């Protein structure tokens, strides 16, 4: 099967490079469908050589060329995680209806930041972020019941 450098893969590479530059990341490991990317940046100004690991049926592979630069940082394998409810109760996105929500999609929060409240028997329990992360998606609806272990936030560790 011919090498597949479809536009979508190249676009993905470009996006990864942009993200790395914007967020000053040293290394990204990304799996999208059958394509795996590991991108390592040398120094802080320019992205370095790319290593693309194609699916097993492809013929060609590009080999990395090592360069002498600052050591890279290993990031955790899993990019996305789900924060689940620790209890049964009613989910609230804001401290009260007049105030803004604790978090919105796209926010990056530090560990211990309050993400929401869950109310049970008239007691409002603050739910803190277990680690610093970016809020990708809010999975529960405001003022609705949530059960134990129910997914509340899809996040990316930062």
């Amino acid at each position, binding site marked *: 099967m011919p090498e597949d450098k479809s536009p979508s893969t190249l676009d993905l590479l470009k996006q990864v490079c942009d993200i790395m530059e914007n967020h000053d990341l040293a290394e990204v490991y990304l799996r999208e469908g059958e394509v795996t990317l590991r991108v390592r940046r040398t120094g802080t100004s320019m992205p370095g050589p790319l290593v693309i690991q194609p699916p097993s049926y492809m013929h060609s592979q590009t080999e990395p060329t090592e360069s002498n630069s600052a050591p890279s940082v290993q990031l955790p394998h899993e990019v996305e995680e789900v924060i689940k409810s620790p*209890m*049964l*109760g*009613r989910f609230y996105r804001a401290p009260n209806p007049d105030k803004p929500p604790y978090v919105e999609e796209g926010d990056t929060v530090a560990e211990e930041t309050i993400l929401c409240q869950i109310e*049970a*028997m008239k007691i409002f329990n603050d739910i803190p972020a277990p680690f610093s992360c970016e809020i990708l998606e809010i999975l529960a609806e405001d003022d609705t*019941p949530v*059960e*134990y*272990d*129910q997914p509340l936030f899809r996040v990316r560790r930062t």
Partner: protein
Amino acid sequence: MFNKILIANRGEIAVRIIRTCRDMGIKTVAVYSTADQDALHVKYADEKYCIGPPSPTESYLKHLSLITAAELTNADAIHPGVGFLAEDALFAEICKEHKITFIGPSIDNLTEMGDKAEARETMAKAGLELVPGSRRHKGGILKKNPKKGVIESEEEALELAEKLGYPVGIKAVSGGGGRGIRIAYNDMALRNLFYTVKSEAEAAFGNAEVYLEKWIENARHIEVQVLADNHGNVIHLGERECSIQRKQQKLVEEAPSPSLSPKIRSEISRAAIRAVRSIGFSNAGTIEFLVDPEDNFYFLEMNTRIQVEHTVTEMITGIDLIKEQIRLAMGEELGYDQSDVNAMMNGHAIECRINAEDPDNNFTPSPGKIDGYLPPGGIGIRVDSHLYDGYVVPPFYDSLVAKLIAHGRDRTEAIARMKRALDEFTIGGIKTTIPLCKRIMNDERFLNGLVYTNFLEG
């Protein structure tokens, strides 16, 4: 009429309660731990909420989660089932505060009968005989806790045991349901077991108080089912014989008892009614008695809840006891008087409890995936179970997986049907106590109705 009931339990009893609710047109809410995601009671209920991880303390016993679930679903009432919070007076109080009806007796009933030593005191006042023991001994050994009959020291225990005569039972005040009991056959055993029971009791119930009782060999365990409404009406629905037990846990139950003479039956029933009236009891309950070889009967304990073996009473009376509990909780009057019930009594019923345990390997628990489930059928056969093919029996809860009940016009017919049903019953993938049930059904002593609480030791 209740619109919605939350079932604060799991397993076969939760399925049982949901079935009656559906019969009555009442909506149901199931609560479950993560280990019970695929449980049958969750599939059958109208609404369901996951309330915690597998551990019962974090899920089925957690007051907060149960009340929250009831409030989120606007449930009118909670049925606590058996075990768990069924006799928890505090939980009943919390329900009341939140305007949720606790389906069961009153908070006072639960409090009074919950402390086993206090219950004996109350029942003695109501005219019931107690097994000779630290509560009843005339010698007045007890200085510290004359009311409760609590034994404070090894010396006290030894002194009393000498007067009562061995064997003696050392029992945890907060025990019940067969838990927190050890039997001593001599001084040395008593010396050891006295401390054993205390530490076991402390660990299990948070209360190390124990009392002493004469242990009667060849005793029969006879219990009387009662129903009472809030209008002063009390009836009994006959007795159950539950003598076949393993480590004080019931295995086989039947109604009526094959060994009670009509005279004693009548006396026990009347005594039960008298006792229940005296404590202003309401809803469903069971008074347990010990009957000695001379037909003397002694009050053991009162269970202020529905019992696992309520089924055999249902088979001989045709009355749905869960339905009665619900009706009584709604404030209705009893639908039957004693003569109605007596007229409805019909035939004989036997129940075999089937546990996920290996009877050939010291009853080691046998959780796991059910691979091939085929329950028996036919006339007079009833199966109460939460099993289904592919279901994974979790390891976190008690091992009861099915109740097999056989009814016949007489005991012989019931036994024949039970034997046939046990042969048909297929539960693949796990070990069960079905082989033990079969052995019991073929045992000469059982067939002759000669069953005592030491049956399985013989």
